[in-house]
């Protein structure tokens, strides 16, 4: 990438002071990452590009809220992007969203990870994967479909041919098991 986390934090800090050029640098260094998130959830390029713009407006507005000690800047931005994408997905599901006719698997990973931020993140990921590995296959893929692809309870119910109530129970058990396994 050529841009370090430290650089990104400085761009954001300057953006918080109203520096639009710095914000432009932040956009260009991070947009592919955030767009990957939004597109995988919304599966519609035009809508994803619209939502991505909203996301960066939100990042601009909240630039002053970022606390470096709590999460990495990329995680912080990714959280804003995921939340906004899921909101858009849920909102539009009410009036039949258009799903682009492209190969979704192209976006879905098969354990070929993109670059993680740093070694510490890799450790966190390894630990989480170990804990996910402790779940039954169905439940593990449920958690991944929900988190990575934005599946709702109802969509999971359909995919796994179970009542929504059962899905909720499974999700809660899986999440509790993960929490325990992660020891936090």
């Amino acid at each position, binding site marked *: 990438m050529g841009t370090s986390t430290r650089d990104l934090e400085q761009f954001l800090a300057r953006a918080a002071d109203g520096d639009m050029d710095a914000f432009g640098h932040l956009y260009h260094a991070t947009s592919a990452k955030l767009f990957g998130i939004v597109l995988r959830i919304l599966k519609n390029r035009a809508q994803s590009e619209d939502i*991505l713009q909203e996301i*960066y*407006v939100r990042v601009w507005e909240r630039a002053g809220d970022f606390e470096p000690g709590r999460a990495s800047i990329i995680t912080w931005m*990714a959280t804003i992007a995921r939340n906004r994408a899921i*909101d858009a997905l849920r909102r539009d599901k*009410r009036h039949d969203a258009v799903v682009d006719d492209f190969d979704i698997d192209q976006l879905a*990973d098969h354990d070929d990870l*993109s670059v993680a931020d740093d070694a510490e993140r890799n450790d966190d990921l390894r*630990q989480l994967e170990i804990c996910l590995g402790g779940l039954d296959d169905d439940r593990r893929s449920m958690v991944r479909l929900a988190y990575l692809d934005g599946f709702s309870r109802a969509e999971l119910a359909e995919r796994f041919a179970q009542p929504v109530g059962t899905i909720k129970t499974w999700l809660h058990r899986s999440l*509790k098991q993960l929490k325990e396994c992660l020891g936090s």
Partner: protein
Amino acid sequence: MTDREDIDMLAAEYVLGTLDPDMRRIVDERRTNEDDLNAAIADWEKRLSPLNAHYRDEMPTRDLFPGIRARIEGARIERERVQADNIVEIDLLKRKLARWRIGTFATGALAASLMVAVLVSDFAAPVSDRQFVAVFHRDDTQPAFVMSIDLDTRAVIIRPVSATLPEGKTYQLWIASDELGPAPKSLGLLENASAPTTRSLGEFDPALLRNATFGISLEPEGGSPTGRPTGPAIHGRLIPVEH
């Protein structure tokens, strides 16, 4: 299941993304003033965010930054315009208020009881031009009532702050607007001087409400005998709303 577990699972599913839209909205609101919920969400974000590594980078088809920049600047211009409008509106409303006072005096039906306050509504918050708050002052110091209006639902809520109700009296709410004619129109009595009163203003259109002047008068039990406020107006004061 304990409350703590409920909150933890609510936070977990919020972060996982499986809550329905209404529930997500409720969580968005609750987390702003519930520290334990907000902390639980942050913990779940920390637990699950390593999964973000599974998202693959993808380039948008074009450079979206000019569009983003335009949206940010558009929002800023709109905010400044709203603020400038408000300064003008305060001025207009003050004049409207003066006219109403004169009008009320001119009806001759006054003096019997005291008009508690007349009000200047209309302060648009930077992020919303649909919600307004106004404070009714008994005198220069103590607020007597706080009124809020939501233009989308056209619901008005009047909350007594330091209002006390003398024996045999009642408070009456009024609206004044050029479109409604020269005299204030009654919006009914405030049943209870110690609890909020909600009124639906569904019969008025939002544009009228936005520019209307509101008043509260102290009247004999059962409301004004003349159909108009029966006391001289004192004054209202405008406060900004921050969301």
